[in-house]
């Protein structure tokens, strides 16, 4: 059972990371830099509880808000580039954040131990959760609650006029602008929200693992984040959650394949993306599901 809880915890955290890519992607911007916001959330929340004695809630909020602020700042220069240029630029951003944390040294001696980010040697002893008798299962509830909140908020966003504007910008920026959509505001907002969600994921992660370092927020995490969203499909945020769940379950479940695990994993990505190029939960699936639900309701209403 503990093992399943551990896997679900990682799925929950990575789903948040994937959702941060999703939020930005539905305005037509593909970001390979969301792991940078994740890192900001992780380091700041970790410092809050481990160095400044904050409690968990405010620390998570700090990580979320700080990453959101950086997202806001990134959103503006991001306006100037499009398509895969943006992908490469955000990749560069993520790397610069990582390099920044590689060089961050801010330690204090607390209770006889050296605590705090220590450059390449990492940031250990973020033990808030484990010191207070919070079990892994209880922390999973925290993660799932955060995830549920984010999913609800994203769903509300998507059903609102703002959500339509997001999709309009993805579809055709010029037409959207002509129709009165404030394209700049939409795109910057997407980066801000995406940053916040990734920051929340990072803040939750560092308290789960008690440790963060620069290697953990490098390019492989960028690729994972984008893969969750792309594999999941951009039709609905559930697609990304499903994408994270499937990929992480595969990482664990393929352990039976021993040394061939990652080879099979790569092959499966190729297979799924070939069979369903728009992801598992693409727009057609969403429409089909919506239609199915409408048909069900109609049958129930019929006398």
């Amino acid at each position, binding site marked *: 059972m503990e*093992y399943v809880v551990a896997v679900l915890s990682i799925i929950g955290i990575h789903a948040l990371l994937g959702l941060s890519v999703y939020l930005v992607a539905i305005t037509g911007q593909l970001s390979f830099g969301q792991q940078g916001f994740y890192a900001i959330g992780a380091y700041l929340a970790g410092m809050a509880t481990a160095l400044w004695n904050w409690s968990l809630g405010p620390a998570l909020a700090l990580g979320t808000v700080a990453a959101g602020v950086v997202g806001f700042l990134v959103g503006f220069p991001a306006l100037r580039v499009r398509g895969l240029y943006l992908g490469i630029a955000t990749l560069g951003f993520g790397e610069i954040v990582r390099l920044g944390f590689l060089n961050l040294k801010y330690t204090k001696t607390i209770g006889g131990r050296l605590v705090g980010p220590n450059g390449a040697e990492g940031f250990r002893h973020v033990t808030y959760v484990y010191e207070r008798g919070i079990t892994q299962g209880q922390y999973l509830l925290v993660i799932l609650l955060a995830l549920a909140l984010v999913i609800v908020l994203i769903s509300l966003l998507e059903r609102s006029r703002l959500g339509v504007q997001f999709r309009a910008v993805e579809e055709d920026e010029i037409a959207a602008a002509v129709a009165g959509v404030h394209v700049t505001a939409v795109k910057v907002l997407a980066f801000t929200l995406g940053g916040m969600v990734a920051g929340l994921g990072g803040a939750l992660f560092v308290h789960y693992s008690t440790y963060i370092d620069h290697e953990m927020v490098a390019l492989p995490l960028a690729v994972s984040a984008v893969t969750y969203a792309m594999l999941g499909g951009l039709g609905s945020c559930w697609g990304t959650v499903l994408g994270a769940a499937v990929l992480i379950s595969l990482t664990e479940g393929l352990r039976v394949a021993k040394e061939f695990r990652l080879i099979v994993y790569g092959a499966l990505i190729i297979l799924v993306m070939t069979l369903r190029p728009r992801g598992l939960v693409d727009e057609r699936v969403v429409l089909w599901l919506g239609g199915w639900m409408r048909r069900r309701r109609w049958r129930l209403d019929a006398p």
Partner: protein
Amino acid sequence: MKRLAVGAVVVASALALLPGAGAAFQEEGTLRIGGMWALSGPAAYIGSSSRGLAQLAVDEINEAGGVSIQGKRVKLQLYAYDDACKAEEGLTVVRRLADSDRVLFSLGPTCSSVAEPVFGILQKRLDDPADTGLQFLFFTDTAIKFGLARISPWAFRNVGNEPEMFDLTFKLVRERHPELRTAAVAYESDFAHSVSTWKGAVEPALKKYGYQVLEVVEWRFEDTEFGAQTTKLRKANADLLVMLTHTFSTCGAVKEFKRQRVRSKLMIGITSAASTETMVGCGQAVEGMIIPTNFAAVTPRARALAEKAWARYKADSNLHSVPAYENIYAIKSIVEKVGIRNEPGTLLQDRRKVRDALARLGTFQGVLGPIKMNGDDDPVKPRDVDKAVILVQARNAQWTVWWQPPEMGKK
């Protein structure tokens, strides 16, 4: 058809999460032990050697009849997993070992960056009900970053003590080559092990033995171009060149030294580089390099082990992998002495019994000689070992012994 295939993938991944069926250990005649190593990714060559040596120990013990528990002989069963040198995978694998596979203890991890979070989630205060850390025993063979075992009383390590190893190294170099006075250092600034070895082991030792550090250069673990740093080293023209870099960049750098005609009188290397891979990868370029290590095939027993491990498991015997072999034997003798029940219901007590015995163990037999396990209350290195240090030197594409403790080799 498409939907079927995709549906199958989704269902398969969901099924993947089901934990394995837990059978009764003593009833089924097995003692379960675990290991998590880097079996994929760049550190795979280190992890796979550890796994090979562990499997060798398990097979040897099983061939000799197994472990004696409650008057019955049970076979060892090794549950080995790949953590790909990644924290997220380490965090899930440790719970799989602890909870689904229900092993008595685990070897590994290979990477210090995985050991950090994995030890971090272990229980910090024994017998404290408010501490919900995992109560699971680690007896590590590889992760060498200084201070990891302090993180939790459930973390024990049989790894080299780099501050002491380099202290000994520079002491001996001072004695044998008093004419060498100056040093230049290269390290990998993005690799935690390299940085902590420089800061925690080499810098203090160089200072202690009166060496003047003329130049310190850095590069990245994955770098392949070392021209600028080599030029700086050439200008420094130091007597000693201390290369705290791992195999890939070491090989690249020493070739650049040759190109730019950097000639040092003596090269010192980092512990992890003393492996067969370095020889295969660098060959002549590292000629003369001296490295402190804990394992070299200098006794008949060590030679036999190295040959057997290579022949049967294609596993290299070195300071990172041989501890896996030693640890399994140590736990076997603890289990037989302390007496565990080996039943699923008593797993927590059994682990605790073995943990406490390991803390009180004192000295146990390693392949090259006695190893001393420091207890919980050691002020400097609790739950880490003291063991013999050997200095090896690369000569003609082979690692030969430059210095070994006088008592060794007489066994």
